[in-house]
């Protein structure tokens, strides 16, 4: 049994080294991913996932974009929201927990900000959001930009 365990340990050390290499590569990949440039304090519920944090950061940096697009998660009827912005930020400026629990709001916000960065036009951004998300649920009653 001693010979078997020693041989396995040698292989195991190689395996562990390989595992560490992969971990470091993964860290590098992760670090090169969503870094986020805003240093700002958010409530703890925002930090439930990387997508949630990225979406709230995007909302804080681009409130006018989110105010121009509707949310299709159904919150217009259940929460009385008037736009995607209200899923993240209340009218008085404080944070709303709704988007932290809704993956659809997060995806929409990230898409809206990404497309607006590409088009620079709120009307086009709105059209793209409507085109992609109109089948997901009833939209909020958001006026066209």
């Amino acid at each position: 049994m001693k010979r078997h365990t020693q041989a396995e340990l040698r292989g195991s050390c190689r395996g562990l080294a390989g595992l560490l290499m992969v971990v470091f590569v993964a860290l590098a990949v992760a670090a090169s991913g969503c870094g986020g440039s805003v240093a700002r304090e958010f409530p703890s519920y925002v930090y439930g996932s990387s997508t949630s944090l990225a979406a709230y950061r995007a909302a804080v940096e681009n409130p006018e974009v989110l105010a121009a697009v509707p949310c299709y998660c159904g919150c217009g009827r259940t929460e009385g929201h008037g736009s995607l912005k209200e899923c993240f930020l209340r009218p008085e400026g404080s944070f709303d927990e709704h988007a932290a629990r809704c993956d659809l709001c997060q995806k929409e916000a990230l898409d809206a900000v990404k497309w607006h960065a590409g088009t620079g036009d709120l009307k086009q951004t709105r059209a793209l959001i409507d085109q992609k998300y109109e089948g997901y649920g009833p939209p909020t009653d958001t006026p066209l930009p």
Partner: protein
Amino acid sequence: MRSSAEPEPLRASATATPAGVDRGFPDLLAFPPVGRLLRSRLYPLVFQVPTFVVFVAIILVGFLGVDRGGQNAATLLTWTFWWPLLPLALILTGRTWCTICPLSASVGLVQRLVRFRRRVPGALLRRNGIWIMILAFLFLTWANRAWGTHSSPRITALILLILLALAMGVALWYQRHTFCRWLCPIGALTGLYATTAVVELRARPEACAPCRTLDCYRGNERVEGCPLYEFPRSMESNRNCNLCGNCIKACPYDSVQLRLRSPGRELWRFRRPLFGEAFLALLMVAVVYLQTVDMTLAWGGYMKGAIENTPINSYNVVFSLTFVGGIAAVLGLYFLVSRVSSAIGGGRMRVNFATFGYAYLPLALAGHLGHNVAHLIREGPVAGRTILGQMGLAMASGGGVGGDSALVRFLAFGILALGALGSWYLVWRIGGRGGASPRWGAVVPHAAFMALLTGAFAHLFLLPMNPLHTH
């Protein structure tokens, strides 16, 4: 139907008689429905076809359906139903899932359609396969949080498609089910969990004595040999037996039997404990804990503190460091415990590490099941309604997440208690087997570490948890 190339010769140790075959329970193959099923030419094809069809449908729905985890059958079927139910299936039926698995079915399909001389897996793959599987499993676990796999139908479908392509590619190159044995990301895990099963398939040494053809391993004109390169005659573990029934059909001496047994009975009887498997058992304890804690509401507070009070601004970097650190902490503590255990009870630390690692398996399983029972009970009904609604079979789909919290807590803590008791029992049996002196010297450090881990899981199960998906 022999393989197109001669299989690798068996080593002498492989032909030894397995230790401790449990004759206390009757042979289930003598029960007509079970015996007829496992001896049938249609088994396991009759199960593989529907699972393969569902698997392909999941991939298609994942790519083409609604891109929202709580409303797409791909994510719901995979993460709300399959992943929580898998460990339960492994405990009840051993590694049977691996027989009906769509990846296994695809391997069989490729090897039936494309017939040419294939390679036998070399020593390098055989020796390091477990580490490949562990790395792949760790990567998928990390990606689950870093990329939000369980809430993304597209990523779920992509991962399944990649696994399908890999399985079929390996099947073109290597004989038998090499992918399942040495490369599948959950292959090592299913094998390890299967060692706790309440059933086992073993041969009768006295019936095997006159055999010179080794049909159970090599196959014959009627049926192929063991797809996972196991030799039933000397098989002492469920780890590489997927109950495909090939050996039952191939054996001319009717030697192979399927019996009920005490759960985990083989775990204190291994003649050759494997370092990699012991490592995986402790790794599972750490991974299950981390996968549970990052779904609690308290996780947000931890990440807020880590991101806002350190120079690291990236969620994924902080998560990755926590992931690696958590695993390193559990394994590091286990290393210390093994040192203390071997110092007091005698024996080499390396042997102690490999042998006692299996004792933690019930705890890992309990953590896995206890966490997922909450998702299954709270989200299963609404997930089921959603899936049926998308198939046009239900009037109302969606709805809120519910479930009786008291029931969930009762089940979670009950499962945890069973797991802890199982682990303590195992550590006592393993301690006695190795001839440790004093026995308590080898056992107490591990038992204390198990108590610490049990307490950590119990605390975790008390914390409010986020659902898998929003519906």
